[in-house]
């Protein structure tokens, strides 16, 4: 019955009145995007047919129709990203829908203080993502060579009777594995802590496994950073320096951004 309201994001009303909204097509590709001022925040929305976009239908599409998901996810991302270039924006998650204007107004009104503090945190700042990857084999070789505890253990093992060497070598392998994990975490965390000096906030996300990344290296760090626009370039230069310095030791960096600040503006 009637139209649903698809909410892309919230921007400060004073910014909305100073600048006009660019023209965008809506989520269903036909209608346009428009604004609904709600006190100090202005919602950026489009209308959606409630029959075509029921909760079940959306869930079904997201789960079973990859082409649809790809197209719509891009639409959402591109729209919010373009808005983020012009306005301070609290980006909303994919398919955030309200039954009607009234329910949207009520929801926004109830969160007014939270929204305001998010605006002041986000103004003039950008979100960037840094992923670190590591070739285990290279680091493992370095550990084998440079770790005195492992060297000592190896020498000890070579003195043992043959039968026992087999089991002791296995134990040593296990020791190397745990040293490897520690070393990788230590290096990744040090980089993260150093990068945090350039930023307003830095959060750590979970690493993705290889079947998600499709890479031969392991992801060792997945960090999101809220950075002042003026500090972005020096932040990126720092990442680039790490990239150059650590390349030979099996490390890779992947930076993406600027992202709408999804990780620093919890609206829901």
């Amino acid at each position, binding site marked *: 019955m009637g139209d649903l309201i698809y909410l892309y994001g919230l921007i400060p009303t004073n910014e909305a009145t100073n600048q006009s909204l660019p023209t965008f097509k809506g989520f269903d590709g036909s209608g346009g995007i428009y604004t609904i001022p709600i006190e100090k925040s202005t919602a950026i929305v489009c209308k959606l047919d409630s029959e075509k976009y029921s909760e079940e239908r959306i869930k079904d599409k*997201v789960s079973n129709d*990859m082409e649809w998901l790809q197209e719509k*996810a891009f639409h959402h991302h591109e729209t919010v990203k373009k808005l983020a270039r012009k306005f301070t924006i609290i980006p909303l*998650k994919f398919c955030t829908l309200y039954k009607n204007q009234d329910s949207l107004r009520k929801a926004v009104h109830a969160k007014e203080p939270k929204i305001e503090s998010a605006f002041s945190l986000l103004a003039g700042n950008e979100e960037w993502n840094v992923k670190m990857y590591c070739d285990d084999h290279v680091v493992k070789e370095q550990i084998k060579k440079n770790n005195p505890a492992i060297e000592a253990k190896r020498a000890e093992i070579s003195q043992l009777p043959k039968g026992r060497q087999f089991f002791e070598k296995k134990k040593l392998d296990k020791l190397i594995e745990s040293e490897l994990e520690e070393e990788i975490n230590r290096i990744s965390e040090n980089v993260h802590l150093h990068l945090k000096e350039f930023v307003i906030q830095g959060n750590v996300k979970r690493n993705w496994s290889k079947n*998600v990344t499709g890479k031969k290296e392991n992801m060792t760090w997945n960090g999101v950073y809220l950075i002042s626009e003026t500090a972005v370039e020096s932040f990126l*230069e720092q990442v680039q320096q790490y990239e150059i310095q650590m390349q030979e030791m099996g490390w890779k960096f992947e930076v993406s951004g600027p992202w709408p600040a*999804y990780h620093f503006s919890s609206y829901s």
Partner: protein
Amino acid sequence: MSLRESIENKDVALIDILDVILDKGVAIKADLVISIAGVDLVYLDLRVLIASVESLVQAQHGNDQAVSSVNFDQQREELLDATGQFSKWEN
């Protein structure tokens, strides 16, 4: 070109977008290959959740470990240690 511009102009992989914009718990059930502008290819198998990608994959790893040969080896060693069979063989 500044670093910022060169990164900004790069294609972003769909999986990165989905990881950011999807609410947790939204499942992708089919096998799929994601390709954006022919750049990033990401294969996701049946068991992978997007947005909860990480938690699900980690949960699987947890399960894997419970039945992996590493664990069996460890248990066997512990048993051997406990029963003192090593010393019998050595001498």
